[in-house]
């Protein structure tokens, strides 16, 4: 997997998975972690497609999804910007956290663990506190 820096973002693209999801997830995470500032301009579809050597339609799809998430805003003739609303980012971050928790809980349930076991695993699993 190759790492590519584009503006404030660092992308790792794995060609064996849908690229649109990877672009979307990686931008979402950088916004959630605060690696890119509120109101900051992000690369245009064309710039990102060229830097990643990826089809522009694929990048466009990820950008449309970000806008639906409320994480970005298009400004006419100026490009696409990260939202200036802290609340939008905070609520999106909680949504993601909830989704990740559900995925984790589902997987642990499928192994037959109870809630108590899960808490034990969260604090004691190898590598968790690294």
């Amino acid at each position, binding site marked *: 997997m190759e790492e590519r820096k584009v503006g404030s973002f660092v992308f790792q693209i794995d060609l*064996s998975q849908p690229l649109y999801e990877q672009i979307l997830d990686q931008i979402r995470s950088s916004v959630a972690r605060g690696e890119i500032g509120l109101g900051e301009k992000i690369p245009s579809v064309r710039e990102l497609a060229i830097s990643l050597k990826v089809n522009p339609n694929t990048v466009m799809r990820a950008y449309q999804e970000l806008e639906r998430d409320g994480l970005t805003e298009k400004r006419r003739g100026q490009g696409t910007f990260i939202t200036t609303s802290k609340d939008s980012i905070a609520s999106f971050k909680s949504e993601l956290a909830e989704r990740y928790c559900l995925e984790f809980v589902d997987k642990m349930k499928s192994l037959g663990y109870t809630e108590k076991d899960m808490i034990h695993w969260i604090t004691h699993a190898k590598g968790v506190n690294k």
Partner: protein
Amino acid sequence: MNAIECKGLSKQFEKNFALQEAEVKIPENRIIGVLGPNGAGKSTFFRLLVGQIKSNTGEIHVLGQKPSWELNHQIAYLPDRARWYLDYSVEKTIEYGKNFLPGFQEDKAYDLADRMKLDASMMTASMSKGQEAKLMLILCMAREVPLVILDEPFAGIDMIAKEQIMETIIDLASEREQTILISTHEIAETEGLFDYVVFFKEGKVILSGDVEELRGQQGSLQSIYRELYR
């Protein structure tokens, strides 16, 4: 809408079938990878689309029409192993494009030459293989036409030139509604470019579809390719 639709397409050269009852559907305004080993029928398919050869049986519809010289006004075609006149400079080549190629945009051609670092005064005779490939690409990509066909534009070209060509294609695809067919064997390096793919094997299409969907189901184009042809 589909840019290309072929039914029961066959083409025989002496005793060999280059295409045999091929069914091909290609959606418009995408960058399409046309993949398959040597001899699978890719170049024959392209030559049929531009009417350079006639099929033995089957139907071909390109942009809703049958292949013809009139239709070729709307198609920019870069043949496999294409070479250019040795005594032409980049400037003279662009002049040629302006005079003879429908839809050719001179400004765009100079932009592309600049982007790919081809000096206007450079002569074909003094060019490397990669530089000549870029020049041929300019003749195609500077044309504002609905269909572009590039038969192995990356063959035998160094990594940097390949990247510049890919960037140019992406750049143009982001500002135009254009269907771009590209055949190549350099799948690992170029697969990000494609959003639709058609796999040829022994004169037939054996798999085609949206690249992102295929990636979700079966992995990278490179690994799909390996499974199909090994």
